[in-house]
């Protein structure tokens, strides 16, 4: 019994940091609708800033003053990020901002390395709270009790701020209806800045307050990211009490998981999330999202046309040039291009979902890695020939997408995105932990192509045929009746359903198809590298895909491919310099600010401006139509 209570207390204490950081994320999302990938970076900055302040300010007062000051400092950093990076792109297509926040992650990583150095910093302990008390004979650290006491206080303070002050009223109003706040004459951009200050400040507080239990290191940002997203989703996006309950739930379950099922530590929270979302699709205390908020906000995509003769000739010429590449006598160029084509196919398959389907998958790496692993496992375990593995890989990935798609498509918007993420992480942890079968973290090695493709040049030709073939196939499908049905389901699910289209089934098939093609990319990958490791299924890989699709232009047909090729090329060059993350981060931010419609979308606009006004410029009528469309959805829900 004593142990049980002590474990419960440990869980509650652990929930403190998680709640502080997650509540900030939840607030930011609730009001600004920005999925802030950089939130983990604010948390990391909180730890570093707090550490530095605590070196200067002595004693117990100094310690707690440092914690509060850290919140302030990180909040101000959040304001800088909001004003410089995000404000210019609020008008961009939805979720485009997450690319900007990704750039911020990279910049902060390198800046932290420059300022605080590479070594882990052990957090200072809280003066006066270093000891333990015995509760039913079990030792409980005093600082844990302090954390348990502080958290409800913070929750209460936030609750007061949100429900009892004018600012809070605005925040709540903005969470529920952004247009209304704008209509009320509230300066929306300052409201957003204020919320960013609060959200980032909370993350900073979280970073500072965990110092006595840990420290500051350069991996903290990504290490907490998945967990806080899980907390926010389980609690319900935008709900603070929900975030608290979820933080406690996850932390307490984790403590018991550690004791009674030690192997479960990696997957536990994802399983909890998957279960919660299955039972309550909008989280514990979340509210149902208004459909249309997340499909295609902003200027609608332009009508698409099959490529004309001129474009076809151009593509053919480019293909010829590609095929002539090995003649250039640069072996590495061939290798690099092989890599790029593989990544382009992966990005194109994600773009198919994201752009045409309006289905934002945060876990697309599952199918890329799934295809790679399907091929790798066949080679390693049953000694399958490369050709067979190649055929079965997309089937395996497609099957995974078929199952995961079925589970996820019952949700919409951000919850859909989060469930794809959770299930992808489940697949990742399965691969990571089942080492007898998958090799675990040591991966699968010695999976090289068959003899007829073992030369880099021949494998390159193979990649061009399969990879470019896959990309062209996706493009063809976009123009096919199926592709149109997919876009129809995205544009207006109501209209599509009312004209006989089973939108869920269309989306399900598209999800499966995108998964299978990502699997093809995975198979190409595994044979080009000779090995595959769990990181190919991980969140970061999924994010890489998302970034390039948005960077290229989600509302253009070629956005995925262009984004992927550009970023890979730039990365290949930039990673040669010491502070490449800083450089890449800044570059991404610049591109995001200058090209809010993505590279292709913005170039197209610039070209049109150069030629004079385009025939069909929809920007003036579109917002009206959209406002009424979302009003219509609400109407029909009554």
């Amino acid at each position, binding site marked *: 019994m004593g142990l049980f209570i002590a474990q419960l207390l440990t869980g509650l204490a652990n929930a403190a940091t998680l709640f502080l950081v997650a509540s900030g994320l939840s607030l930011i999302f609730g009001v600004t609708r920005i999925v802030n990938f950089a939130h983990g970076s604010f948390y990391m900055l909180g730890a570093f800033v707090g550490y530095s302040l605590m070196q200067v300010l002595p004693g117990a007062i100094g310690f707690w003053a440092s914690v509060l000051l850290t919140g302030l400092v990180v909040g101000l950093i959040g304001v800088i990020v909001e004003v410089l990076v995000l404000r210019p792109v609020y008008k961009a297509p939805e979720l485009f901002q997450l690319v900007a926040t990704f750039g911020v992650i990279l910049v902060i990583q390198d800046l932290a390395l420059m300022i605080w150095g590479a070594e882990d910093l052990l957090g200072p302990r809280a003066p006066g709270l270093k000891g333990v008390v015995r509760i039913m004979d079990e030792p409980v650290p005093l600082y844990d009790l302090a954390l348990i006491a502080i958290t409800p206080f913070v929750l209460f303070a936030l609750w007061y701020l949100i429900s009892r002050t004018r600012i809070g009223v605005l925040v709540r109003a903005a969470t529920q209806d952004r247009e209304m706040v704008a209509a009320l004459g509230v300066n929306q951009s300052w409201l957003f800045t204020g919320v960013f200050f609060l959200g980032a400040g909370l993350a900073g507080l979280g970073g500072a307050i965990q110092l006595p239990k840990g420290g500051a290191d350069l991996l903290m940002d990504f290490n907490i990211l998945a967990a806080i997203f899980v907390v926010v989703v389980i609690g319900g996006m935008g709900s603070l009490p929900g975030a608290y309950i979820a933080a406690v739930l996850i932390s307490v379950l984790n403590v018991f998981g550690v004791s009674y099922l030690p192997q479960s530590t990696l997957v536990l929270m994802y399983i909890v999330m998957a279960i919660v979302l299955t039972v309550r699709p909008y989280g514990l205390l979340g509210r149902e999202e208004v459909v249309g908020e997340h499909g295609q906000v902003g200027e609608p995509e332009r009508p698409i*046309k099959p490529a004309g003769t001129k474009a076809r000739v151009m593509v053919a010429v480019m293909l010829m040039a590609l095929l002539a590449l090995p003649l250039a006598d640069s072996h590495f160029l061939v290798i690099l291009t092989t890599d790029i084509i593989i990544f382009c196919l992966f990005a194109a398959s994600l773009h198919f979902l994201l752009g045409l389907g309006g289905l934002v998958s945060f876990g697309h790496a599952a199918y890329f890695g799934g295809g790679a692993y399907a091929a790798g496992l066949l080679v390693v375990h049953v000694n399958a020939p490369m050709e067979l593995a190649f055929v079965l890989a997309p089937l395996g990935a497609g099957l995974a997408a078929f199952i995961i798609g079925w589970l996820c498509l019952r949700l919409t918007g951000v919850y859909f995105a989060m469930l794809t993420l959770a299930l992808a992480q489940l697949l990742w942890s399965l691969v990571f932990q089942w080492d007898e079968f998958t090799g675990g973290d040591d991966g699968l090695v010695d999976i090289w192509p068959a003899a007829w493709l073992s030369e880099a040049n021949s494998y390159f030709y193979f990649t061009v045929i399969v990879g470019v073939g896959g990309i062209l196939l996706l493009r063809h499908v976009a123009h096919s*009746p199926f592709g149109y*049905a997919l876009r129809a389901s995205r544009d207006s699910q109501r209209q599509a359903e*009312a004209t*006989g289209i089973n939108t869920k089934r*269309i989306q399900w098939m598209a999800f499966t198809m995108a998964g299978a093609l990502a699997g093809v990319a995975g198979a190409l990958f595994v044979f080009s590298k000779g090995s595959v490791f769990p990181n190919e299924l991980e969140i970061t890989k999924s994010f890489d895909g998302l970034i390039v699709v948005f960077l290229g232009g989600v509302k253009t047909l070629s956005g995925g491919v262009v984004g992927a090729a550009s970023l890979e090329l730039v990365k290949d060059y930039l990673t040669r310099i010491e502070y490449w993350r800083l450089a890449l981060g800044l570059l991404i931010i610049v591109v995001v600010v200058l090209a809010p419609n993505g590279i292709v979308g913005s170039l197209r606009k610039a070209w049109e401006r150069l030629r004079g006004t385009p025939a069909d410029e929809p920007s003036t009528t579109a917002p009206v139509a959209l406002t009424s469309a979302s009003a219509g959805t609400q109407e029909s829900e*009554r």
Partner: protein
Amino acid sequence: MNSAESAVLKVEGLSKSFGGIHAVSDVNFELARGELLALIGPNGAGKTTCFNMLMGQLRPSSGNVYLNGEKITGQKPRRIWRKGVGRTFQITGTYQSMTVIENIQMALISHHRRLFSLRPYATRLYREEAMQLLELVGMSEQAERACAILAYGDLKRLELAIALCHEPTLLLMDEPTAGMAPSERIALMQLTADIVQERNISVLFTEHDMDVVFAHAHRLMVLNRGELIANGTVEEIRNDAVVQEVYLGGGSLFAAGDTHA
């Protein structure tokens, strides 16, 4: 009017409540072949809720809907559509990223069950059929324009063309002229009336503009607070005491014409 056997649409005891609030209660009516039936009532009377139950967007709390004698209560909109019911919405829901003609082609593709086809290009399918429909609603010049830049009245006409794609026997039109200029309204309703008469389609529509209603409806039903309070010809409704009171209480609709912008 006609007997139950020839009714295209028959509604029995249709009710819907949201958390204890009765949005629609015990609505009964029939719709004959070729008939234009208007459903009127003040804002919040439950007209859209009623429509959503007929087309399957909402599941009724109780009651039944029969289409040509077949029970369709609670079926999904896409199944009801396949049985020959077309619908237009109060707020249009056309596909913004497509051109005008592609919007029609999309519905035709669905009608011909080619949704999962990968060949040929969608733009090449049923083009002539789509063009004919556009001509019918007078929009053939705008065929290649992006839907996102259409004027609102044109969107309404486009929606009508889409609703006609699968040669429906019944059209459900929720405020077909909402948001249009008065002259446009008359024209659109005249167009609709001509088409349905020619094709012998039954129409149930809601409308705020009484000029439109009186000009084209064969029969009227009045819904107030979820209940059907009157059902009859234009003359009968004009002289109905209960209806008078309802509308006089909330400002006469007859006099004010359209209050819904």
